[in-house]
């Protein structure tokens, strides 16, 4: 087991099991064969071929597409599709700043393989010149990665809220970080990957933030999504990342970036170049 294993996990590509999801002719995601076949049952909404799933021609506005697709998603949910339904709308667009072509329930967005955006926070404490970071254990009731290790705060980017405001909201819900403190978080880059395996294509861009926390601050979860928090030395974060898959796999990517930026993973690691280059392994924005 090594850090590079965490990177490679995010890079699995089993494209034969998927067909493209196109909206207004633009490739926006990847749909597993089984779901693609099921969508043939809704010809008023989806035009399904062996290579691609497109939206029906009549759906010529974002509102119409959102409503028509949303109705189908609700039907399929009753059949057991889309475990972990959130009731949270995700904007589906060719790039982060482009106008959404439709909105999709978050659990369905994952099944459609559309690009999702998240904010991830490293909560850092400096003690005697050494850095430590708060690690969360995800609640066993989380639909994705129950019981896995996580950063102090992380969350998907829903429609209609800016990155910073979303981060401040997640800080309050997940760790009771006061807004005045959360505002001091600094954007420090992004990591991205596309993983196509099993029935899911995960295509994510994670916006990373660092926040220096006072030594006497203790996070407290307010929304039931976190089972507990621990303050870890960075060397322990690195060891657990390298030796296990205890961390949620996309969180691992964000944490490896954190350890690289703070010099904990350095050029003495024989995989250093491959690790650094592997922190962005998704197609560019607008070229899904």
């Amino acid at each position, binding site marked *: 087991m090594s850090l590079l294993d965490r990177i490679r996990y995010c890079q699995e590509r089993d494209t034969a099991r998927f067909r493209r999801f196109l909206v207004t002719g633009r490739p926006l995601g990847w749909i597993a064969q089984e779901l693609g076949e099921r969508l043939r049952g809704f010809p008023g909404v989806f035009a399904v071929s062996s290579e691609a799933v497109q939206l029906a021609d009549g759906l010529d506005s974002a509102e119409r597409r959102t409503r028509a697709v949303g109705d189908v998603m609700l039907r399929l949910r009753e059949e057991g599709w889309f475990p972990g339904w959130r009731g949270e709308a995700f904007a589906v667009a060719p790039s982060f700043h482009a106008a959404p072509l439709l909105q999709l329930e978050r659990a369905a967005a994952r099944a459609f393989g559309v690009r999702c955006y998240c904010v991830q926070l490293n909560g850092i404490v400096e003690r005697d010149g050494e850095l430590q970071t708060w690690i969360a254990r995800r609640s066993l009731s989380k639909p994705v990665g129950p019981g896995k290790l996580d950063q102090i705060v992380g969350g998907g980017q829903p429609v209609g809220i800016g990155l910073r405001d979303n981060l401040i909201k997640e800080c309050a819900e997940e760790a009771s970080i006061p807004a005045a403190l959360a505002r001091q978080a600094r954007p420090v880059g*992004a990591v991205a990957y596309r993983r196509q395996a099993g029935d899911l294509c995960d295509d994510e861009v994670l916006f990373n933030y660092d926040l220096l926390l006072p030594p006497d601050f203790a996070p407290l979860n307010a929304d039931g999504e976190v089972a507990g928090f621990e303050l870890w030395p960075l060397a322990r974060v690195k060891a657990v990342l390298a030796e296990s898959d205890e961390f949620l796999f996309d969180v691992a990517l964000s944490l490896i970036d954190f350890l*690289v930026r703070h010099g904990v993973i350095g050029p003495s690691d024989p995989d250093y170049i491959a690790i*650094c280059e592997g922190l962005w392994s998704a197609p560019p924005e607008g070229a899904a």
Partner: protein
Amino acid sequence: MSLLDRLAMIREPDLSRYRRFVVDGHTVGWVGADLAARLRGHGDVFVVDGATIGLSPHLGSYGARTAAVARVLQSMRAEGWFRGWRNEPYPVGPSFGAGLFEIERAAVPSFGVCAYGIHVNGFVRDGANLRLWVGRRSRHKPTYPGQLDHLVAGGQPAGLSLAENLLKEGAEEASLTPELVGRAKPVGILSYLLENEEGLRNDVLFTYDLELPADFTPANADGEIEEFFLWPIERVIRELSDTANFKFNVAFVNIDFLIRHGFVDAEDPDYLELVRRLRRRPDLR
């Protein structure tokens, strides 16, 4: 004008116009048509066919390859090839630390060989603000004379470790003591593949942050830097956004520095493209 303008040159070249340079079964570079045609005249050293360039099979060792290639490059140098000859051997191989032979540094972009370098962001904290040390390259440098540079930056030659090279370049370029160099923290790499007037730049830059005391003043010892400035970060951002005064890859490293230290807003419409372009070379294997 914007930061992204500085990264516009990072475009994947059309490699179909190049021949793969293959040694010992590994792709170690990419050679354009003009150079390939010229190398045909040295059939005892270079084997040129329609799609690839290799070394003659009788060159079976590191030393034999290095010596034979050096003879050819020296004879071509006399004809005006390889501007800015340095007498600095660079390793050629499939990955960092796995050299199969060495070639003169000035010939590296002509052969599209991956070059490694170190770049040190020397900065001073000023409350919540940062100031960055900026050097102006000597007007007599063979490459990029007069352009803005890092406090310390240099190519990674054969036979030195990264740590040794940091000490050497730190002393030569800025008179940094070993104690100060020891405070430099690795913060990642930048890698890119692009075409410019030198040829194919296929580079991996090891980047370091070095926080310096407010009373430190760099002094150049090797004549390669004409003067140093300690610029507020806003000045660095303005210079990067509005001018091409920074050496091209120094601009890349500076933009990475700005991103890592939170000086580029994540909501900036160019943010993800800035991050992506600095992150990854196309896979050339």
